[in-house]
Structures are given as C-alpha cells and as structure tokens.
C-alpha cells in the first residue's frame, strides 16, 4: 500500500491541467503529473516520493493522439508503449519501446512517462534524439515547442509546472534504416547493460545510448569518430569509447569493465549493420 494520502485530479484539457498544477503548488501540495503511474506508484509505495496531489493527464485529448499531421508524426505523451508498438508509426521507436519492461507493463507505461521518469535508462528517448524530434510542452503560460535536444540533457528539463504534451517527428525520419540492440545481463526482460539505437541518414550513422552511463545520451563526438571510415572499425570504436560523456555505469546489471566490453561489441554490430545498408 501507499503509506500516505494525496489528492487526485483528472483534468480534461491542457489549460486545466496546468492551472490545477499552479493552484495546487500555491497551496503547498507538491503536485506531480501522472500518466501510466507505474514509476510513481512504485516510488510512493516505498515512501521515496511524497506528492500531495497527482494530476492524471490521461483524460487530456492532446496527450492521447497518435497521427500524421501533414508531414509530421504527432504522438501524445500518454500513448502507451504497447499502443505505440502495435500501431508502429515509427519503427525504431516501436522496436525501442518493445524492449522496455514487459508486455503487460507496456500496457500502462506511457511514452511521456518513460522519457520523464526518474529511472535512469529512459530508453524511449533514444529514437527521439536520433530523429531530432520536437517536443510540445504545456505550462501556465500556454504551449511551447522545443527541440528534444533543448529540453533533454541527461534527463528531461522542464520548467516548474510544465508537462510534456506531444512529441513531433518529421515524416522523413520515420523510415530511415535503423538498428536497435539491447543487451541485458540475463533474459529478455529488464534493464539494459547496453542499449544502442542508431539511424543512418545522409550516409552518416547517428547513434544513441542507454545503460552505458547514468543517463541516456547522443554524442556528436562519438558519431564523428564512428563515421571516420579512414580508420578500421576497431580503432573507431576504441576512440568512440574514449569520448563517453561520463564514466561507464557500474551497478547490479554489470561492472564498468564488463559494460565497456559489451559496448564495444554492440557498437561494432550496429555500425557494421548500418554500413552495409
């Protein structure tokens, strides 16, 4: 059970959600936005978070869309990972989503929830970083749009009271050649040792990583090295690993040394596959 009480609000529109958040914050309720709820329920149950109010976004229509609007794919933040995978509008995103948690959990976990979560892996963001998606964000001032690269650096960085409404991706990026490789310590469900997602665009390979460091990332420096075909692949990979943005993660899934070994293998698989396509 969750050992404390909170209030529950279910706004039916974007402005109402932002307004309620603002009011609840003024009342000292420490509200949080809520979508699939899997992470919030887990952390509340273990007494690690103590919101005074949750604002459930699942009844906000804009948060539930999944459609082409002109040349853009628009996905609402409350679309579940299983719905996303079933509809498959963006194959790399579907493949990535399919690797998160398990099938039943994916009926609850939402795209927005995965990206905005506290759990360090946040794998669903990798395709969005690679496709330079844009993010529609709502707050008390209204809706703004920003590049994923502006609002996601190690984790989502929104202003207080803002929430993620939609993710917008150009049609031209949806069907590019891609690779998604997730390697776990054991089995086919669970957190990654290493996840590599990669897209090939204009003859260049773009890569993004989760499980390697304590946050998901895309690195221009790594991509620069990996695309330097004047070097043999093994040398490129050695150099790429030297460009990591933070120390290799060492945790129960695997030590830093083991991760480095797995990362090098996985990078080689990804680059080798895309260079042939």
């Amino acid at each position, binding site marked *: 059970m969750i050992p404390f009480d909170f209030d*529950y609000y279910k706004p039916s529109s974007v402005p109402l959600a932002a307004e309620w958040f603002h009011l609840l914050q003024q009342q000292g309720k420490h509200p949080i936005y809520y979508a699939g709820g*899997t992470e919030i329920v887990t952390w*509340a149950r273990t007494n690690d978070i103590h919101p005074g109010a949750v604002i459930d976004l699942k009844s906000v229509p804009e948060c539930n869309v999944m459609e082409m609007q002109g040349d853009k794919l628009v996905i609402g933040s409350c679309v579940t990972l299983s719905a996303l995978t079933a509809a498959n509008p963006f194959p790399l995103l579907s493949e990535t989503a399919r690797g998160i948690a398990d099938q039943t959990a994916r009926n609850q976990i939402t795209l927005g929830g995965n990206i905005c979560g506290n759990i360090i892996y946040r794998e669903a963001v990798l395709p969005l970083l690679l496709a330079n998606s844009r993010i529609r964000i709502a707050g008390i001032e209204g809706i703004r749009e920003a590049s994923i690269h502006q609002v996601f650096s190690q984790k989502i960085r929104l202003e207080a009271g803002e929430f993620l409404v939609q993710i917008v991706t150009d049609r031209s990026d949806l069907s590019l050649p891609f690779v998604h490789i997730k390697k776990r310590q054991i089995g086919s469900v669970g957190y990654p040792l290493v996840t590599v997602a990669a897209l090939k665009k204009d003859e260049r390979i773009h890569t993004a990583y989760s499980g390697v460091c304590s946050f998901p990332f895309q690195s221009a420096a790594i991509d620069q090295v990996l695309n330097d075909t004047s070097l043999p692949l093994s040398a490129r990979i050695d150099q790429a690993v030297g460009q990591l943005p933070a120390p290799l993660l060492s945790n129960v899934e695997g030590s830093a040394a083991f991760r480095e070994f797995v990362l090098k293998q996985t990078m080689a698989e990804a680059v080798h596959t895309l260079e042939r396509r």
Partner: protein
Amino acid sequence: MTLPPPAMYPVACEVNGEKRLVRVRAADILLSTLRDQLGLTGSKPGCENGDCGACTILVDGLPVKSCLMLTVEAEGKQLTTIEGLKNSPVQHAFVRYQAFQCGYCTPGFIMNCEGLRNAHPHADEETIRVWLESNICRCTSYEEIQHAVRDVFTPKT
C-alpha cells in the same frame, strides 16, 4: 476557479460484468481494493512491484498489473479478474496440462493469456513468448504453462 474537493473518491466501474461502486483513498492500489473491499482474492499480491504478474487482471480487455494501478484510475473501466472467468479455454488448458505447482501465479498467467486471446486470437509462437515474459512462476512450471498456452492457440480441427 475552485478545485474539486479531496478526501474519499467514489469510483464506479464494472467488475466481472457487475456494476460496482467503491469509495477509496486516491492512494489506494487497485489490487488491494479488489481483494479487501470487493472480496476478490483471486488476484494475488506477489512482488507488489510490477515484476511478477501474479496480480494481473484485465482492464477493458487488456492485461494490467493491478498492483501498479490506482483504484481511482478504474473509474468507468471494465475489470475482469480470475473470478470472472467461467470455463474458459485457457482455464481448461491449464488443468489439462497441469500447468501449475503451487498455483499462486496461476490467476495472473491465466488473465494474461485471456488478454492475449483478446488482442491476438491467432497469436503465433513469438507473440506467445513475448506475452508470457510478463509473468513469473517461482515453481518453474514454465514448460507446462507454455504447452497449455500453445494448445489454446492451436487451431482445432
């Protein structure tokens, strides 16, 4: 603007085909409400962390881990627990293949397979494998469970 008042929340939903109304704290977990308020103890608390699947029920036909859902989220939903099944082919297959040992995980496995039947009436081997990954059997009856579920999706002549 005034905010809706907090405190106890009425939640109207359909449980195993019957309309039910419960009053809950916003922080109440659906699994607890089913077991403690509605007396439906077929859904089992296992890890209570979304890992084991023993608490799996159907929400609008889809499998959901009821330990990770707030009861207030069930407003207007159709819930099906193991008590709502009567002689389903999945239940029969589990009996036929003795797909259990202690039986604690069985309701979760069966509800997950019911959800699979809803979503993929002709599920192939790979789809079955992916869906079964959501549940854990500590007695390790996996082989018998796989045989039972495979049988459910094998066309009968």
